[in-house]
């Protein structure tokens, strides 16, 4: 009887359903999203990871750092609010904080790891670990204590605890070491052509990993002191040893989404309509480089150019290959490390090697002949400030060394440039381990002392 009834109903329904009743509510486009893939290959994930990394390095954090460190000026709208510290709230940087964890970050790096491990692709695994350490390290630099050990395991740890910043830095170092070890085994094929920077070259990734290790050792030096500087020197010696090993983003510029995000934001052509929000005009860096008659000035700035608001057309270009980690930085890390452990004489060698390296043009700069400098902390750090134009690392250098000696715009926050950002509201509201705004520290573990006022 029941079957008959169902049959009768189905017969009535046949007007619109050719397939028959059992399939009316299930199957095909009804229950499976026909619009999106449900899985991907390691290379496809890696392409995303690379774009996510590049976005982390050239997006809002880089703009924030460059404005707070006065390499550029936030002239209008939200950028002006960031520039003078008024517009920075706990809801300003949710997206930037999340990058390291979400799709294109840890979430997909873990998928790469799971897929390449059974294949024995150590090169891919090694590269994946290096990128993971790098991206997480950036969040630790800015937010201090962050979820890491329990992150990206929602069904096990729905509310990941905050690992102390020192512990995250230890994990970053060990992740980088693991990455190096995987790469040194030489097994597998890695991301190959999808890696638009190194083409999957294991040696270049190993050198990058050592420079990153050196960089992150420096981030602990304000607290740890000499051992950190010594470690930085050791790693720097194994790090990127010529400009050919630079990690520089490779933007085709063929369309907006493949163009340098700095250009996208600044673009005098007004593609994003943000033109004029951030300008180079009369920034501290522009004034400083002009003041010391730095020959590189023309690569950086073009005073009076109303199209580019004083940025040099070399830099403000859809295909400008933004340098993230370079031979130059590696040498300057070594210089700072040696200055702190072995004195000015030893430090002068890498410092002036860095200066000399400018004589050869690279994809990210033209050739300039620079005079040698004495290895003072001021000289090393001011040189690094120039080299790390538009690079988030400038903020870490400043927090540690207080160079360049800049006066915070509009008095900063309580007289200083902030040492960290507030935990994003999206994390605070959902993770009870994140303290309320009022209970958050003003500075991170690695940076206890604010920079003293400049005369």
């Amino acid at each position, binding site marked *: 009887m029941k079957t008959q009834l169902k049959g009768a109903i189905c017969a009535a329904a046949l007007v619109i359903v050719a397939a028959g009743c059992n399939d009316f509510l299930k199957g095909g486009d009804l229950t499976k999203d026909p619009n999106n*893939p449900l899985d991907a290959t390691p290379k496809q994930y890696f392409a995303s990871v690379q774009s996510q990394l590049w976005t982390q390095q050239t997006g809002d954090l880089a703009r924030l750092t460059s404005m707070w460190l006065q390499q550029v000026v936030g002239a209008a709208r939200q950028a002006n609010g960031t520039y003078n510290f008024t517009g920075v709230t706990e809801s300003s940087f949710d997206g930037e904080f999340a990058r390291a964890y979400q799709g294109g970050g840890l979430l997909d790096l873990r998928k790469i790891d799971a897929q390449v491990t059974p294949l024995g692709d150590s090169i891919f695994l090694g590269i994946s670990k290096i990128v993971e350490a790098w991206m997480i390290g950036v969040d630790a630099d800015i937010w201090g204590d962050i979820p890491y050990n329990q992150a990206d395991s929602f069904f096990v740890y729905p509310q990941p605890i905050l690992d102390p910043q020192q512990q995250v830095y230890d994990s970053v170092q060990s992740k980088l070491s693991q990455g190096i070890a995987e790469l040194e085994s030489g097994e597998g094929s890695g991301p190959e052509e999808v890696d638009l920077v190194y083409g999957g070259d294991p040696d270049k990734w190993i050198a990058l990993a050592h420079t990153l290790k050196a960089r992150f050792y420096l981030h602990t030096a304000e607290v740890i002191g000499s051992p950190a500087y010594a470690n930085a020197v050791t790693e720097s010696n194994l790090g990127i040893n010529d400009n050919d090993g630079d990690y520089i983003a490779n933007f085709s510029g063929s369309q907006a989404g493949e163009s340098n995000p700095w250009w996208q934001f600044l673009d005098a052509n007004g593609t994003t309509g943000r033109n004029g929000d951030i300008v180079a005009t009369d920034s501290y860096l522009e004034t400083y480089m002009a003041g010391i008659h730095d020959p590189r000035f023309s690569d950086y700035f073009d005073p009076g150019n109303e199209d580019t608001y004083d940025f040099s057309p070399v830099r403000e270009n859809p295909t400008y290959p933004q340098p993230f980690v370079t031979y130059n930085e590696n040498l300057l890390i070594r210089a700072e490390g040696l200055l702190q452990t072995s004195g000015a004489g030893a430090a002068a060698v890498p410092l002036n090697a860095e200066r000399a390296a400018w004589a050869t043009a690279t994809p990210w700069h033209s050739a300039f002949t620079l005079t040698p400098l004495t290895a003072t902390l001021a000289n090393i750090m001011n040189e690094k400030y120039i080299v790390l134009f538009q690079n988030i690392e400038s903020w870490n250098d400043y927090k540690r060394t207080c160079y360049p000696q800049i006066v915070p715009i509009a008095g900063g926050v309580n007289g200083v440039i902030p040492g960290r950002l507030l935990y994003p509201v999206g994390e605070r509201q959902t993770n009870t381990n994140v303290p309320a705004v009022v209970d958050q520290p003003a500075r991170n573990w690695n940076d206890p002392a604010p920079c003293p006022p400049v005369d």
Partner: protein
Amino acid sequence: MGRSVRSVIAVVCALVALPAFAAAQEAVTITGRVTSAEGGAPLGTASVTVEGMGSVTLTRDDGRYTLVVPAARAHGQQATITARLIGYKAKAATITLAGNVTQDFALDINPLRLGEIVVTGVGLTSSTEKLGTAISTIDSTLITKSHENNVVEALAGKTPGVNVTSQSGDPGSSAYIRIRGIKSLSGDAQPLFVVDGVPIDNSVMTAEDPTAGVAAPNRAADINPNDIETVTILKGAASAAIYGARAADGVILITTKSGHAGGTHYSLGSNYSFDKVNRKIPLQTAFAQGSHGVTAVCNAPGCRLSSSSFGAPITDGTPIYNHFDEIFETGHNSDNTLSASGGNDKTVFYLSAGYTNQSGIITGPNDTYKRSTIRLKASHHLFDRLTVGGNISYVDGRGQFVQKGSNTSGLMLGAMRTTPTFNNKYYIDSTTQTQRSYRYPEPVLFDNTSGRGYDNPFFVIYNDLNTAETNRAYGNINLNYDATDWLKIDYTLGADYYNNQLLDAQAQSSSSFAPGQVFRTDGNNLQIDHNLTATASHTFSPSFSGTFTLGQNLNARRFRETDVNGQNLVAATPFNLQNTTAWIPTEFKSLVHSESYFGQATADLFNQLYLTAAVRNDGFSTFGESNPRAWYPKASVAWQFTNALGKTDQKGIFSFGKIRAAYGETGKEPDVYSVNTVDIPGGFFGTGFGDFLNATQQGNGGLFSNGRLGNPNIKPEREKEFETGLDLGFLDQKVDVALTYYNEKSVDVILPVPIPLTSGFGTQLLNGAKISNKGYEVSANVRPITRPNFSWDFGVQWSRNQTKILDLKGAEFVSNVAQFGGTFAGASGAATLGHDIGLRGNDFIRCGRGLSVGLSTDTLSHPIDSEFCQGKGKNALYIDESGFPVFDPTDRVISDPDPHWTGSIRTSFHISKFQVSALVDHKQGGDVWNGTRGALYNFGAHKDTEIRGGTYTFGTDYPYLKGAVAGPGAGTPVVIDQSWFQGDGSGFVGPSSQFIEDGTYTKLREVSVAYTFDGKWVPNLIGLTSIDLRLAGRNLATWTKYKGIDPETNLAGAAFATQGVDYFNNPQTRSIVVSVGLNR
């Protein structure tokens, strides 16, 4: 004698009867006039039926009718003839079917519509006095009188509990309807629209983000309002449960006009309107372009000037331009509908053709919307017990629009920011033939590829092109089979298909994309609906009768959309994809099926107690596997207690009383594909400032995990509503009052529960939120004068709804771009616990919030509540040592866009053939974010910024941030200058809370004067039966304290549930409408 006497009698009888028999050889023509008993006005469209003969006709607008009973059926017998009209009590008369009969009717009004049949569901009807819920029915007259092209907008102010917000005055813009508060946290929260028993799509499709781009209609606007007979609104779950998992936000049941047997009736209705901007944005005219008092000067071609007007005072004699007025003109809308209807006792038809041609208020040729509709509805008695029917509508909509909103190529954004001394009308540089704007006044030669900062509004109007072309067909075929006297079977197979082609194009040198770009969207939507019902009815005794209905519904919805953004125009035109060099394509398709069964039983007891119980069982392909089906019950009781008191004649001081109570549940299906856990869609990584990197670079395909964790066990949301009320009549029904209270609770509300960002996902879809809506609805109508040739009546209605979000699955608030779209960083849409869906953002530091500040005197943290706020009042503004308020970085609720209450008053006079009517609509409360004002402060373009340079004291005389103050600097005068207006006083930098304004308004929404010519000369001279002339005003006056355009506005229109957003929205209009109706 016996026999002869009988013979004589027989002969006499025969003789007497002869004329009657003789007359019976001819058809009987019945003529007459139907008028209102109270006022004597002619009543058009009343149906007049000879009972039992299948002869039906409709009166013309002069109230006259003609019915012909065929000779074969008229043999001098007695017959009952009945006149019926919605809003009036039916009246019957007995006539003799012989010769020419004249029968006039004077109908008594029936304000409570007792005895009228209303549609309450698919295949379901009820008589109004038996309804257990407050179901509102709005008839064609009220729809037509509103002179709105969009049927949704025509519902504004007509019934309590139903709030309508029109997006803007743009031709073809959408109207948002909210019934009894927000029930859900996803989708656009629009009710289900059902036309003649078949659901139709009412979504909004745009080619760009709805905060920018151009206005687009909600698709119910494809209906020609002139084709509508009635609109019935099922407001809550108690009445809408029979629609199950699609009825959470209520159901709008539209019944279109049908033909009636009798002569063919022709009618031509023509309207012509004159539309003007109703409210303007005040702009400053005292200061020149520049910064800090220094006027910007262009020294050479190619100069880029300050975006602000904080220059020196404008010197006398310098021409000043009115940047608001110059972009608007008088718009026009011509609307014509020609209809023919009629039929005979077997077949009836209604045929109409409509053409609406709207030219909007924005100057130039690119602000238009044209809608052509044709409609045929017919039915035929195939056999004695079987009727087949069908109706089909075809719609062709074409529009050209102007870019709006948050968009550097938007009309208002560039126009309002322009410095007062810049002549926008000279928008193409005569030397270089390229766009000039106030930020780029002298373009260099051949510069067609650099942005202008903000586009010149005239360039936006004349050089950009935005079009929409919609073709839609919808309708149904139906069979009604009266199987037996007690069993009736109805079958409906309906379909709704449309294809929508959109083009948004920004010309070369557009500031939003300087190389020029096009957005092409092709979308199509197909819905097929099958509905089978069987209704049995039985009268057990005079005091007990009942019905029983069983039904099945199958529904399939298929949606497809293809979008391509073509970038970099090669030649300046044409605006098509092959003329661009890079393409960003997106495709989306979805398919949803549902299979449902429902049943309803009613019982009528003692002619006073009416019980209804119903249940629906839904299976949707969108439900999760573990919850494949859901039940939706309802039950109601209505007791006409005046009948119990023996007052069945509806006379006397207390003439009618009914008490009703109902409970019902509806649902809301999950969004399609919510069951998929993790998609790997790829895409791009952006920062929210326009810069982004694709996952795919240089041809290497990139895919990454979606931030939304789906849920394979998702189930539909559930709305549970209890409703009770009273319907009362007084003074022989001269006064009627209806009161309704409802208490609704939504449970299992689906929300993307925010989970820690460090989980790698942003959200997880869960059934977990709870929302409560409680409210009152009151309406009262009074007819003080009902004399022939002079009547006056008025009505008031009032409603209040309180929405409270009770649970967000542990979260304090949910702020999700996809869900609460149409909003901005700094004033972003969110659902917050204890509140409604509103905007969140920042405020200044205020008392009573446990906040602390630093002082220059020490390095301690000072809690302001204990140190400064004592006796200063709750929420007093903290003023720091410098005399300024202080930005509070805490994200908090800053606006509640839902009104506290809404009400309307309508009245109409009728003096002889004159009719005067008016509708005043009021919305109390309901915040609107005036982002326009905030931005214009930043640019020194707003009239308010003329106070720059003046010295003011917060809390005393600073005019734009009022209220009590506290703190060390309270009372300290400060100079209000550019740094304030571009700092904490700016909409970009400062707290958004200062630009949240009270959106209270009172509107003279409709007013009209009409006259009907139906004197003898009309037919004699021009062969018509009557001519109606009407002069009407729409939104003639709006009273509000809102500082900007009409507060009835929303940037993204009906695309999202988030309302109350004004960011360079295009303004609203007021109109004068002249209309002529010719009837035959």
